[in-house]
């Protein structure tokens, strides 16, 4: 098993400093929808200038480099223990190189570890095994704190919103979450929604679904329709970029369904800011590629 530490450092650099093309394209179309001279348009123009500068200078798109969330698909026979060591070592180097801000704070003793490592849980690394001949893939998402703080979980039925245990109820609580978030999560945002599960895995799935591409729809037509409907209805709220008011509040919605207990019906909403940093690296034999 080869040492991939340097390749992972490069992977982290790209994730933190180079916004994926699908997100940038969507932001560019959003600019055109805002009135010339408006604060909303100014905000999006600044955001896009920032995207260019970050890419050119290899500096973080946002200073909050977030919780690093890794999803690793490893070929049978690879050591997850060693992969974990490489990822952690790479994160320390990436922090030294200022691609990442030291972001792990001990919640009990209020101490920043200084190197982005914190106990067993920081960074978050999820492993899945694949066939021995398959490629190793590592996906990374940087989930900032501002947008994480406006995420929400609802237990249905919710009487205050008149939300029952069906897709009609899901629609209501998701719209409520967007209205409550206002501009706090650096709108325009992307919504990750999980329906079902328990409290823990429901939230985890609502993030996992955010690894998908902008515009990619759920294969279930009913969920795909709800995804599109939520995006367009959220945009009638008038919250706009940064909450300045405007046309674009949400640029995409992704929903995933799970199984639940008969007694529970959770809807989890993860809000991702416009700085939607997520990338994938693939290792097959000697070949390493980044997308």
């Amino acid at each position, binding site marked *: 098993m080869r040492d991939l530490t340097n390749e992972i450092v490069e992977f982290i650099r790209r994730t933190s400093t180079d916004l994926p093309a699908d997100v940038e394209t969507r932001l560019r179309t959003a600019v055109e929808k805002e009135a010339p001279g408006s*604060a909303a348009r*100014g*905000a999006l123009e*600044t*955001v896009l*200038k*920032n995207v260019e*500068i*970050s890419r050119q*200078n290899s*500096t*973080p*798109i*946002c*200073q*909050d*480099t977030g919780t690093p969330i890794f999803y690793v698909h490893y070929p049978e026979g690879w050591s997850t223990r060693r992969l974990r060591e490489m990822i952690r070592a790479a994160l320390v180097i990436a922090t030294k190189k*200022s691609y*990442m*801000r*030291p*972001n792990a*704070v001990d919640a009990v003793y*209020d*101490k*920043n570890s*200084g190197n982005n490592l914190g106990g067993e849980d920081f960074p978050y690394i999820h492993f899945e095994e694949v066939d021995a001949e398959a490629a190793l893939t590592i996906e990374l998402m940087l989930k*900032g*704190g*501002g947008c994480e*703080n406006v995420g929400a979980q609802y237990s249905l039925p919710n009487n205050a*919103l*008149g939300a029952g245990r*069906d*897709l*009609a109820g899901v*629609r*209501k609580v998701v*719209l*409520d979450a967007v*209205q409550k978030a*206002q*501009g*706090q999560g*650096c709108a325009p945002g992307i919504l990750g929604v999980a329906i079902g599960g328990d409290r823990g895995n429901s939230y985890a799935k609502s993030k996992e679904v955010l690894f998908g591409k902008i515009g990619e729809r759920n294969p279930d037509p009913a969920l795909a329709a709800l995804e599109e409907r939520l995006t367009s*209805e959220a945009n*009638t*709220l*008038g*919250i*706009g970029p*940064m*909450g*300045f*008011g405007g046309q674009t509040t949400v640029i995409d919605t992704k929903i995933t369904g799970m199984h639940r207990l008969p007694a529970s019906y959770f809807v989890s909403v993860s809000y991702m*800011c*416009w*700085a939607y940093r997520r990338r994938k690296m693939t290792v097959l034999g000697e070949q390493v590629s980044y997308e």
Partner: protein
Amino acid sequence: MRKIQLPASDEEIRALRVGEPVLLSGVMVTGRDAAHKWMMETFIKKTRAPQGDDLQVYEELRKLLPGNVIYHCGPVVAGLDTKEYRFVAAGPTTSIREEPYQADVMKHFNLKGVIGKGGMGAKTLKGCQETPGVYFHAIGGAASYIAQSVKKVLGVYKLEFGVPEALWVIEVQDFPVVVTMDSHGDSQHSVIEAQSKQVLDELLAQPY
């Protein structure tokens, strides 16, 4: 676009109204959760005795802050080893967490404004009327862009709070912001919140 050179006078601050874009230049200090809690407990409420270099830092802040602004920001900083600090990424952080402290901190240090994102609540809005002061909204996430307007890092206090939480003294030029809370009691945030609530209620009443 209006330009303001810090420190700002009361007249300059009173002339600002919600919705106006402004370019700020001059010296400012970053401070967020740990800094606000520390200022409040140690110097304003005095529920905690000063320790270490607390009093020394306080004296420096008393010179730096009047007429100036505090920036809610946890930057990425290069040059930590050599102490030749340079801001690499420095966008705003969510301001509402400082709501319990902000009005008191503004008053105590005669701060003329706050830069952050997401806006603040009623207590700070009242503080803005009294001090007078304004809330400047920076563009959340525009970290590399804003870092370019930071020309120089003049110093740092309380680095033991961690790099994001320390108080960094910086010199900026043409830092782009929008006034979203002014000294006349207006808040863009409460307007948008009320309007969007009304639309939400209409959406919730629609059949699936």
